[in-house]
């Protein structure tokens, strides 16, 4: 399956990106209706005609809609490449700017969740592998697997209801306390962290299990290898054998998993942000959906798709560097 080489991978991701661009270009054109119709309907339809035929033609050529489709598509590609994603109808600012102001919040919870699920997942995996088939291992496994089956936004709702509504231990919404005045920069940091805790926990709970299972299962196989026996025979303590010899080698597949996880977390963040009313790109998406702000929806989609594709591509490249075996033709 991985018998593609670097060029193949690049072509694959480039094609995927191109497909998305094509979709983005044609979807608005596939919608029924004509933006000029309402302005130019003739009096027979009992609509006052605002535009004369001449003016209509002028607008059509002004927006470049009289040019052939491939020319329109080419100019669309150029403007996207320049970073021009159009103008938001609702917010009256360039789409790029609207996304840019929200992006740091999404990045915060996505990266926070990546970090947390990786660290906790690896530690739990190590814990579980050392107690393989004992009650603690089995309970942890059943519990975490059940958690993984619940999608992040449903889990987020449960967590929100439990911790913010019922226990009132965490804030219900937002990323900072509104109208707060911080006497110290650390206070601001604390406030941001306090608001980000629940979204980060929610997001990482769904991805934690994958990391946990991967670490645990790789560790279990690694521990049967000869070099582990050698290490033990040399008299190295059990603790060091696990951390230095076993864990280090078991971490390689975890690296890939973490990379691909970022992509999945971005998708999950869209919904989770809405659960917690967190002011990231995801809640921007929801408000643009409600306002039917099509350029903004498209822009968000493009930015998200582009970043997911880039991250996944980089992960594949990095993984090939880390583990040269994957570049050879293996039928997996």
């Amino acid at each position, binding site marked *: *399956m991985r018998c*593609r080489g670097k060029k193949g991978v690049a072509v*694959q*991701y480039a*094609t*995927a990106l191109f*497909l*998305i661009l094509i*979709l*983005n270009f044609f*979807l*608005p054109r*596939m*919608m029924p209706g004509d933006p000029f119709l309402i302005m130019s309907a003739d009096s027979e339809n009992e609509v006052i005609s605002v535009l004369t035929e001449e003016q209509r033609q002028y607008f059509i050529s002004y927006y470049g809609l009289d040019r052939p489709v491939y020319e329109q598509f080419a100019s669309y590609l150029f403007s996207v490449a320049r970073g021009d994603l159009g103008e938001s109808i609702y917010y009256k600012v360039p789409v790029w700017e609207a996304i840019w102001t929200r992006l740091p919040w999404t990045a915060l919870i996505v990266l926070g969740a990546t970090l947390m699920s990786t660290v906790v997942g690896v530690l739990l995996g190590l814990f579980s592998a050392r107690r393989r088939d004992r009650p603690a291992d089995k309970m942890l496994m059943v519990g975490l*697997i*059940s958690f993984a*089956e*619940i*999608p992040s*936004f*449903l889990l987020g*709702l*449960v967590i*929100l*209801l439990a911790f*913010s*509504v019922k226990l009132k231990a965490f804030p*219900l919404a937002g990323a900072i306390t509104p109208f707060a005045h911080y006497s110290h920069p650390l206070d601001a940091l604390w406030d941001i962290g306090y608001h980000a805790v629940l979204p980060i926990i929610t997001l990482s709970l769904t991805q934690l299990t994958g990391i946990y299972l991967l670490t645990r299962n790789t560790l279990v196989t690694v521990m049967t290898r000869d070099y582990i026996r050698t290490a033990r025979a040399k008299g190295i303590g059990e603790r060091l054998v696990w951390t230095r010899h076993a864990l280090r080698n078991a971490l390689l597949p975890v690296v890939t998993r973490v990379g691909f996880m970022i*992509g999945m977390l*971005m*998708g*999950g963040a*869209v*919904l989770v942000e*809405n*659960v917690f009313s967190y002011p990231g790109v995801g809640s921007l*998406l*929801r408000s643009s*959906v*409600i306002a*039917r702000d*099509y350029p903004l*929806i*498209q822009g*968000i*989609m493009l930015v*998200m*798709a582009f970043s*997911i*594709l880039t991250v*996944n591509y980089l992960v594949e490249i990095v993984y090939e560097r880390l583990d040269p075996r994957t570049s050879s033709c293996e*039928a*997996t």
Partner: protein
Amino acid sequence: MAEAVCGSFCQEKEASFEAAQKSARMAGLRAIKADLNIVSKDIVSKNKETLRDLLAAALNSVCDSIGRFSLAGKMGIAGLLLIVFIAVFAPFVTFYDPSAISGMSLDPPGPEHILGTDELGMDIWSQICYGARMSLVIGLAVAMISGVGGGFLGLMAGYMGGNWDKMLLRTIDITMALPSFPLLIVIAAFLNPSILNVILVLVFLSWAKPARVVRSQALAMKKQQYIISARLHGAGPVYIIRRHIMPEALPLIFVSILNISSYAIVAESGLAFLGLGDPTSKSWGMMLHYATSFRSIYFTPYWQWWLMPPLIALIFLLLCLAFIGRDMERIVDPRLRLRGGQ
């Protein structure tokens, strides 16, 4: 039944025998194509029996695995059956029409409304029952279409090999690289969010995985001794696929059908939660959307009977599907490992 199965097999064997003789003269894909044509004519005439035969094989493998389910798996099946029951018999287990205003706005649960009413005074229990239909229909339709269709494509490509296989593999790779959720949102935002559109988009985004799994299975099986000897005895590809490869691939397809159905249910409710569902339909995701869009719902007691029921129902359904899927996977897995597949 047994006679019918046997009869169709024998006739098929004859047909594929002729075909195999023909294919000895012709080369490569063209031969396989001719073979396919002959047997497909045969299938058309014996459509009923072959379908029955296929169904019997599928049913056998499913029954076989259910017998080996764990307690959690059996509970999952019981839970799923319960949801299917309330969905099918929704008019009989509810007292009100789900979109009829049957009470006061935001009534708490009581004797008149088992689970209370929402802000428009519609019965929540009715909405749950009728909403189950939406989730089940979407899950089932998407999973069946992409599981069976993708599985079929993978089977053909894996067995035939050559350029078709290469092309399919490329397409699978690209489809799997597409970030599904952003794509889903943008398509749903532009097309009108009818059930059909949602199903089509989800199929487009989820057919690749079963295709890939089944393809690698078919590829691995093609090299097995007994398949080779069957081929040398003059069995045509359609016969081999149906008789030997299909029974082995069916459990795999079944597992991916389960996985895809929960993916589709999550995707549909996620879209609805974002406000991209069909506003005229009753679904659990739409209930979540309306409840969470209600201003300051968390400061009122309303969330207890408005937000909780669809939330619990969705989680319950997904857990049931997950339990069943995990048991299926466990049962299918040893065979998988034997073949050296993924």
